[in-house]
């Protein structure tokens, strides 16, 4: 009987199809019927028209060929990128954009990490911020315009809510505007958590910089500054995308603050609305807690030396 299978092609094709469908049903079709495959975080919002236009550009340019969008639940990954990805974050992604290769860093927590100006400058010319970066220049996005009727069709296909005003507001927006709007939305449905790992190593209130004035620390701080801070704060801390660090203005208010405030800002980054010494932040800055305590204090020592203190 079994031998007949090998001289009956139609029967053979049917049996082969059944055999390949078993694994398909169990690992692909059955999960699809389960709620665990369709989770949605409560505060996850559908993309706005401009964000969707940006996501379309992200897909068109194949950003997912070099950037992943999923933080794995692994210790060093959580330190580097932020909280690990939750299943409920991706309900509006058709399809998911997790990627499979990190030639560039993961972007699952890129939203709100940098100010918009950083993204504009970086996409226009990545090498201006990271001289040896292999990322292509996307300056042409600044000249290409978003097409409102097309985006309206895309909003409809996704069944995302929008108003006529949302669509007309797209007129005059560049593709760069859209891409930055999208990136700033990525991963923001999960609230930023104070890091559970390195924060303990952070400064205690009113702690003095143990490395203040230390020549070696200042030299190290200078190197670290060039690698991590210069792109936004200028070669000598004179300012650029970010504010000047050479003056005694902090969070837009004149008057110096203590070393541990600097430490905290470098360690935790800045989110708009954050309060430090009674001053309210308006800007965004990424956290650098992955550098660790010694390097952050070295940076503070260097910044102080630039300020002449």
């Amino acid at each position, binding site marked *: 009987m079994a031998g007949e299978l090998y001289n009956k092609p139609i029967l053979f094709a049917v049996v082969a199809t059944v055999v390949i469908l078993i694994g398909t049903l169990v690992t692909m079709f059955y999960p699809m019927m389960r709620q665990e495959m369709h989770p949605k975080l409560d505060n996850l919002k559908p993309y706005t028209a401009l964000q969707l236009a940006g996501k379309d550009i992200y897909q068109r340019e194949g950003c997912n060929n070099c950037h992943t969008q999923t933080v794995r*639940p*692994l*210790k060093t990954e*959580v330190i580097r990128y932020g909280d*690990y990805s939750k299943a409920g974050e991706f309900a509006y992604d058709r399809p998911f954009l997790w990627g499979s290769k990190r030639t560039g860093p993961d972007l699952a927590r890129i939203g709100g990490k940098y100010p918009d100006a950083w993204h504009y400058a970086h996409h226009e010319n990545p090498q201006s911020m990271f001289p040896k970066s292999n990322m292509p220049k996307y300056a042409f996005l600044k000249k290409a315009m978003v097409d409102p009727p097309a985006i309206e069709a895309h909003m409809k296909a996704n069944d995302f809510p929008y108003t006529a005003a949302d669509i007309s507001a797209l007129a005059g927006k560049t593709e760069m505007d859209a891409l930055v709007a999208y990136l700033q939305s990525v991963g923001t449905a999960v609230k930023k958590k104070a890091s*559970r*790992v390195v924060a303990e190593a952070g400064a205690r209130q009113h702690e003095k910089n143990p490395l203040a004035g230390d020549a070696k620390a200042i030299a190290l701080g200078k190197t670290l500054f060039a690698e991590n801070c210069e792109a936004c704060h200028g070669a000598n801390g004179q300012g650029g995308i970010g504010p000047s660090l050479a003056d005694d203005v902090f969070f837009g208010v004149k008057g110096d603050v203590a070393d541990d405030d600097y430490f905290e800002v470098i360690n935790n980054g800045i989110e708009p609305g954050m309060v430090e010494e009674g001053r309210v932040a308006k800007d965004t800055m990424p956290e650098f807690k992955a550098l660790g305590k010694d390097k952050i204090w070295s940076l503070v020592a260097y910044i102080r030396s630039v300020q002449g203190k």
Partner: protein
Amino acid sequence: MADHFVDDIEKFEAKETAHTLPVGWVILFWALILWGVYYFYMYTPSLGGWSQNSALEESLQK
């Protein structure tokens, strides 16, 4: 002329070893299935208790 296009299907497969299975390969086959049962038990949250998120929490405690 055309006869070199015709395959002799009888010559494709050995007769005397047609039903032989190398012992090493049979052992490999069953050993992988056994290992699979073990691994499935160990790494399925509702069976062995392991989950990737609880494993992360554990590693962060260290």
